[in-house]
């Protein structure tokens, strides 16, 4: 019961602190309107926030002790705090760089960017980098990229505004340089994702005294695969598959949505009712049901289960995309400029691609981010439940499931316990990053001055 008493005392102290804070503010500023009209709740909130900050700092200093038992106990909090500050610093410098480097447009964009969005963008770039360069890239990739990029630059120079053309040329050349450099650097992952190495269950940290091995910084799993390599390849598999699924969901959903919005009538009615029914089943449940059936079909047809999963999740998620695309489309279709184009005698293709689509790109892009998070989480959940991405492909959800029991060693070997949390954290970090960026985009496009 003492914990409750402590809680009540702490709250009372904070309440008293809040009153004192407001009183002091009023006296010191000679009754400035801000302190004079401050509700007690606000003062309480300030003191509570300050108390939490002090608590975090004190925990951090406790965690830095040399005493192994205490250091182990506070290991995770310490890593979390250091990680938080580290990410904030990286995001800050990334934004700073963005403000000084690049075209006028991108500089302006960076200036208005909150720190969370900067963090999101740098994280997404990092994941993309991991995913693309996890294994050795081939020379053909570089040639194809160059063959696509150079004509794009030429086209942009002729047809776009100077500013936009400059940005495109910049992006293309940076990408090409990075690819060429990475071609010579080689794969990021030290080992292959399916490679079974001699030693199983090596402890992370690289310290041989406690059963580690410097060759495997994060140790190996139960059957001797390098965890670090699998984490890096996980970016390729998990993110890549989620990305492909989202793209497929968008192609299906957006096409049907815009068709329903422009044509209307019975087609709209039919698709909308069908989507209503599909959306009445919770998506994870429906996915699990269909995956059960697919798992019977897969061996019969000789198609890997992963392909079934991509199609199943894409179809389920395309219903949500349909709703949005249709709503956005309908909002645009009622605009006078569409009426003007219709009265001019323009065809359906011109209407959809030249008049509607350019105006729908902002909400669709934001929806793409959100949808990607959702698909990514669904796939991770399915894999975690054992019916998603199939072994031997390295995948974060499956890794969490396989390594989960290590968490029980946290008290005496925190680095071992960290392995499943790293995989789960890798999933969380990317979705958080995407959500931060989307949140910023939505805030910008809504133009709300709250």
């Amino acid at each position, binding site marked *: 019961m003492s914990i409750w008493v402590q809680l009540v005392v702490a709250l009372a102290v904070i309440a008293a602190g809040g009153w004192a804070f407001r009183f002091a503010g009023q006296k010191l500023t000679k009754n400035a309107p801000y302190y004079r009209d401050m509700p007690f709740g606000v003062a309480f909130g300030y003191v509570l926030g300050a108390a939490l900050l002090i608590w975090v700092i004190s925990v951090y200093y406790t965690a830095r002790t040399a005493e192994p038992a205490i250091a182990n106990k506070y290991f995770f909090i310490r890593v979390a705090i250091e990680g938080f500050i580290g990410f904030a610093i990286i995001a800050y410098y990334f934004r700073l760089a963005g403000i000084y480097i690049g075209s006028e447009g991108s500089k302006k964009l960076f200036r208005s960017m909150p720190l969370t969005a900067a963090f999101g963008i740098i994280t997404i770039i990092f994941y993309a980098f991991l995913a693309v360069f996890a294994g050795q890239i081939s020379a053909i990739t570089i040639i194809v990229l160059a063959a696509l990029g150079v004509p794009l630059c030429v086209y942009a120079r002729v047809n776009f505004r100077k500013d936009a053309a400059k940005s495109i040329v910049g992006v293309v050349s940076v990408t090409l340089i990075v690819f060429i450099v990475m071609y010579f650097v080689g794969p990021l992952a030290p080992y292959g994702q399916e490679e079974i190495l001699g030693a199983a269950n090596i402890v992370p940290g690289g310290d041989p005294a406690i059963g580690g091995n410097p060759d495997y910084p994060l140790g190996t799993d139960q059957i001797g695969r390098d965890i670090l390599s699998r984490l890096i390849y996980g970016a390729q598999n998990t993110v890549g598959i989620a990305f492909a699924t989202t793209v497929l969901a968008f192609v299906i959903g957006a096409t049907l949505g815009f068709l329903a919005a422009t044509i209307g009538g019975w087609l709209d009615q039919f698709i909308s009712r069908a989507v209503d029914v599909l959306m009445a089943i919770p998506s994870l449940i429906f996915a699990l049901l269909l*995956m059960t*059936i697919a798992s019977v079909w897969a061996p019969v047809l000789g198609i890997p289960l992963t392909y079934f999963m991509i199609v199943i999740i894409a179809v389920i998620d395309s219903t949500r995309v349909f709703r949005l695309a249709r709503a956005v489309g309908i909002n645009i279709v009622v605009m006078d400029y569409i009426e003007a184009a219709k009265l001019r005698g323009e065809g359906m293709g011109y209407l959809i691609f030249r008049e509607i689509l350019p105006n729908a790109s902002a909400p669709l892009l934001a929806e793409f981010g959100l949808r990607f998070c959702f698909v990514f989480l669904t796939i991770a959940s399915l894999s975690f439940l054992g019916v998603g991405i199939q072994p031997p492909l390295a995948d974060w959800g499956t890794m969490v499931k396989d390594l989960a029991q290590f968490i029980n060693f946290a008290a005496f070997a925190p680095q071992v*316990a960290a392995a499943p949390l790293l995989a789960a954290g890798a999933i969380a970090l990317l979705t958080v990053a995407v959500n931060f960026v989307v949140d910023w985009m939505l805030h910008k496009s809504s133009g709300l001055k709250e």
Partner: protein
Amino acid sequence: MASILRIIAQRLGLGLLTLLVVSIVIFTAVNLLPGDFAQAILGQGATPEAIEAIRKDLGLNDPPVTRYFQWLGGAIQGDLGNSFAQANFASFAGSDTGSGLASVAAQVGPRFANTMFLAGVTAMIAVPIAVTLGILAALYRNSIFDRAANVMTLSSISSPEFFMAYVLILFLAVLNPILPSLSNIYDGMEFSERLTKTLLPALTLTLVVTAHMMRMTRAAIINLLASPYIEMARLKGISPMRVIVKHALPNALAPIINVIALNLAYLITGVVVVEVVFVYPGIGQLFVDSVKIRDIPVVQACCLIFAAAYILLNLMADILSIISNPRLRHPK
């Protein structure tokens, strides 16, 4: 009043219709399986006689439409058919397949009650916290509190449920052994013990659902506070408390109720993963287990139950927001 009753009746009818169509979708999906159930149950090495016996027993020789209505009719009366896994077990034991079949309803029933308990505990914790925090964030929008809450809720929404679950296990069960990390509850358990064991999964769900609910509440309230009639109330010199209670709350009720119902519906999806992490014997875990061993009747039944709960909650949100709309309560 008559018009509002008519609208509610319409919504109810629509909900029932949706459920019916959903049941057809589920039934059809399952019937897309290659071969038939009997083969699936007994595996490749089964004798034709044994397969024929099961076919007969399950009524697989009937046309699909007949079977659908038999299944639906049974489901309405609480008879959800028989579990394959149990049948399989029975056939291995060498007993007569007919009498060895265990009913799905007997398996699902207690599990369903457990899940309802978990969802109930979660709702009891999450709803008051989320609504309070959401209203506070809306009232002090763009303050430090609001920004911090925005970052935290966004992170919480973005994290997969199992990440939250393991982080909680790490801090509350492994490093500081306050709560048990396994939720092995059973019948006849004392309520307090049952509650302690349910607390960790409930907290995990709370974290996820609270974030959603809080953001939606905040958005609804901000939307409301921007309306001219709130400004009018302020310009009439009404005290801030009265502005909230008398002017904002009656209009905020509909959106908040909507938010709560939608998030309870969302809980249904979240419950599956969380139950697996904590080995909580609920319907979600049963569902996943059945998916893995392809116990089709159980999968079918669980799916139907989840869908029904989901539709019901959405329907409730719909109806409650109709009732709380003054324009509909007092027609012209």
